[in-house]
């Protein structure tokens, strides 16, 4: 029970830190890093709540996998948007897009 409490506090701290840094939105990289931190907290929360508390462990695994897939998708979309803006900037300056 003590382990569960420690892991829950740690995951809550990670989620709050991630959301706070994402909501400050100083740069795209900082924003994405905050979201990834929050996703890490959610993976920890799902695993801890379902595994350590004796609930159906497969549900926690599925949620953790889905959250990891979201993290990958967010990173890919972030890179794609960054490249899109960079290409547009180079086109505007009459340079080759790449």
């Amino acid at each position, binding site marked *: 029970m003590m382990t569960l409490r420690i892991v829950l506090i740690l995951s809550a701290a990670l*989620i709050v830190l*991630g*959301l706070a840094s*994402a*909501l400050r*939105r100083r740069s795209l990289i900082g*924003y994405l890093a905050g*979201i990834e931190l*929050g*996703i890490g907290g*959610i993976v920890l*929360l*799902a695993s801890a*709540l*379902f595994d350590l*508390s004796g*609930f*159906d462990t497969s*549900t*926690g695994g*599925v*949620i953790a996998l*889905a*959250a990891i897939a*979201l993290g990958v*998708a*967010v990173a890919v*979309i972030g890179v*794609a*948007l960054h490249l*899109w*803006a960079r290409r*547009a*900037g180079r086109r*505007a300056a009459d340079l080759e897009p790449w």
Partner: protein
Amino acid sequence: MVVPREASLAVEACLALAAIAAFSGMVIGGPRSGRNAHRAVLIGGIAALVAALLTWRIDAIWFFEAFRVDRVTQSLKALICIGLIVFAIRPGTTDVRGRAVPSFFAIVCALGLVLSAGAGDLIILWIVLDIASAALVLSVATGGSAEARGAEVRRLIGAWLPMSLIMLVGIIITAAIGGATRLTDLETALPGLRENPAALTGVALIAVSILLRGARCVAVLLRD
């Protein structure tokens, strides 16, 4: 008129076929690809709207209760199809008709929203809402220049990702306390947990995240 049970998935099938047609246009390219993708959005939206109205009376459950079809879901799907048709025929789309990418992502967004309307499981609901949000961001981003669309894309990403995380926290809390992620199981488990503050917090987080995400996305699209 007797409508077979399989017809209850006609809305999703119409939008999926239109998405495949738009994707083909996007991959093949050429001078007409954008116009063809735009036509696919329009025809797919109209076909899906007709399918939603024709299958309005059908009740069906698919994929081990992960997907439900009833009058409420078909009404929501009809509203989403009307939104897609309005997106396709609005005057602002004339300048981007030469590009297939925004049309493809618009129809993927509509498909995600249609699937979320019939979702019978919280995890399925979260996944399809995220697919719809990502497709909406990409549709808006590719629908114009980086300078013109930058602020809207930032607002949409701001509406999508934090709300997605909050919704997932709500789902984890609700599923851990209710003992299930299926809506039918939660419908029986949650009334007995009315006094449980954690269960109420989980449900409130899910509801607030869906409402805030929807409101912010609609506000950005209306301002566009």
